[in-house]
């Protein structure tokens, strides 16, 4: 809508409440040749102060550390943890999406959930057993796996319980880290599990593989053999270095696009079977009651989803003017095809610019230019994947999956696989709140 209208700077408005043609942010030429340079955009700031040498430019700096760390000014960019005192239960560390850009989550900020602490595994003693419905049970150690042909792929990882606070019947006021922090994206490298199963020789009639970790709960999940043979990986590296202990050192199962918990960490065993194990985590935890009284089972896929990372709660807008609305979109089914953004609570939408590369089952960064006029706004994003799946509106999602009768704790998991649209309400002060719209 409104394609013929012009923003007051001369940039074409592409949807209601200030959404602008992407050239408002991306096109240097249009900034100069267009109206922004001549309009209010370039000249509404006070003049800059005279420049001087800063202290750090006048003396040599520190020696280079063996392993690099972020600047001391970036101390706020950390994960939030549920049980810092190591209380005996699940511990969770959430990714600070609002403080990151791009699509790759740094290893130290990648989300993690541990169900019984992080085991201190000696990689030289770790073993991977493949057995069950195979011709010959086999044991692999890390040295052996290092000689196999490895594959590399970028992919998101998302806990089935990510965004669970949005099952609440009222919007829970929390930042994006608390609401959507159990999703991250990394480059994974490792050995295709199919190659190892081929060596063991899968027997006719086999349909499932039960994967088990070497942690103290011996976490186990059943995976369809079709997925294993398609793109499952025994992941050894994350973003170029060995996967960290919180991600399953020295090896984890990586199932692109599938529920995080199925990507078994500290992978030590694959039993090939003709049926699922009906393990604790698939029988109870990652299964949800439906409004009709039945319950979901074997949900597997993290469906198409997106959220706006900036602006978002905690990132207030200082003054009216042009901003970039930025966020991530992803789908466990494949590539992101399209992201629409709205600034008026879904009354009008415009197509966001998608950064390349757009990889299947990976974060895709999207952006949209927006002129905030100082009035109320409700920002939303909605994604479609290449298979044609649409991210549901909240209304559509609740009709199908339900919501709580009263707001739960922000740390509770009333349901799983929430992938509906998130709404951020901007008030007249420029502060951003979680809203339902």
């Amino acid at each position, binding site marked *: 809508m409104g394609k013929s209208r012009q923003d007051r700077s001369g940039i074409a408005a592409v949807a209601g409440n200030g959404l602008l043609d992407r050239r408002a942010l991306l096109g240097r030429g249009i900034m100069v040749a267009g109206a922004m340079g001549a309009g209010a955009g370039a000249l509404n700031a006070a003049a800059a102060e005279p420049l001087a040498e800063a202290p750090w430019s006048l003396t040599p700096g520190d020696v280079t550390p063996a392993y690099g760390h972020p600047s001391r000014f970036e101390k706020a960019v950390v994960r939030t943890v549920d049980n810092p005192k190591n209380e*005996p*239960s699940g511990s969770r560390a959430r990714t600070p999406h609002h403080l990151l850009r791009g699509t790759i989550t740094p290893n130290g900020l990648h989300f993690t959930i541990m169900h*019984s602490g992080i085991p201190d595994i000696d990689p030289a003693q770790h073993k991977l*057993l*493949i*057995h069950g419905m195979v*011709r*010959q*049970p*086999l*044991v*692999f150690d890390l040295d*052996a796996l290092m*000689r*196999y042909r490895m594959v590399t792929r970028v992919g998101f990882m998302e806990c089935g319980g990510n965004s669970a606070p949005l099952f609440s019947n009222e919007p829970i006021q929390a930042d994006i880290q608390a609401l959507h922090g159990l999703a991250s994206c990394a480059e994974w490298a490792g050995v295709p599990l*199919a*190659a190892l199963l*081929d*060596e*063991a*020789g899968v027997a006719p009639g086999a349909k499932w593989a*039960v994967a*088990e970790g070497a942690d*103290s*709960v011996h976490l*186990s999940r059943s995976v*369809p053999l079709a*997925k294993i043979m398609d793109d499952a990986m025994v992941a050894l590296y994350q973003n170029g270095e060995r996967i960290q202990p919180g991600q399953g050192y020295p090896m984890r199962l990586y199932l692109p696009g599938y529920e995080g918990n199925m990507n078994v960490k500290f992978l*030590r065993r694959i*039993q090939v*079977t003709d*049926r*699922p*194990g*009906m*393990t*604790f985590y698939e*029988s*109870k935890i990652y*299964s*949800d*009651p*439906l409004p009709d*009284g*039945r*319950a*979901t*089972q*074997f*949900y*597997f*896929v993290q469906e198409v989803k997106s959220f706006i990372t900036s602006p978002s709660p905690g990132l207030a807008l200082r003054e009216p003017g042009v901003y970039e609305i930025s966020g991530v979109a992803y789908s466990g089914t494949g590539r992101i095809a399209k992201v629409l953004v709205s600034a008026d609570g879904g009354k009008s939408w415009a197509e966001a610019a998608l950064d390349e590369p757009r990889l299947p089952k990976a974060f895709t960064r999207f952006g949209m230019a927006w002129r905030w006029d100082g009035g109320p706004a409700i920002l939303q994003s909605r994604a479609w994947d290449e298979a044609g799946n649409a991210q549901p509106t909240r209304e559509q999602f609740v009709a199908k999956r339900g*919501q*709580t*009768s009263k707001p*739960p704790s922000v740390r*509770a*998991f*009333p*349901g799983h696989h929430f992938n509906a649209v998130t709404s951020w309400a901007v008030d007249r002060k420029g502060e951003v709140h979680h809203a339902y719209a």
Partner: protein
Amino acid sequence: MLTRDLAIATCLLALAGGACAARAESPHLGRPISQADLAEWDINILPDGQNLPPGHGTAADGAKIYAEKCALCHGENGRGGHAARLIGGPPKASLEPGSKTIPNYWPYATTLFDLIRRAMPFTQPRSLSNDEVYALAAYILAENKLIGADDEMNATTLPKVRMPNRDNFVVQFPDRM
């Protein structure tokens, strides 16, 4: 290289593709292991009872073990503590946290044996004998009125326990199974 020839033959039959030939060039570095030597790790219990070990136990045996090794986290008589409630609870599960219980939700009783043996007690997993695991499963099932108070649980009886919610699940992506 009989194994390797077999692999190539199977592969060609199954897929008849170029990717397959590449797979056949695998390094073959997995070390064979016998069933006896992998037995210590072979702990998955399938829902039809496959792999349940010898042993037995009753609720009376289980009550004593429960009080000693489980109640600290799961509460007196299984009513819940900082770990999940195991006995009783709401009749029907909903989206309210904590409402999914063993009697109103779990589809298979075999999952109880599997979970207790692999993960419990939380600070000492794999420390229970098979008899103790059967006894604890019997205690939890009996207190939830899913079996009789004196019923013995063993490799034959446990898989036959009919969990009330078993047929109430919808497989989300059946085409991916």
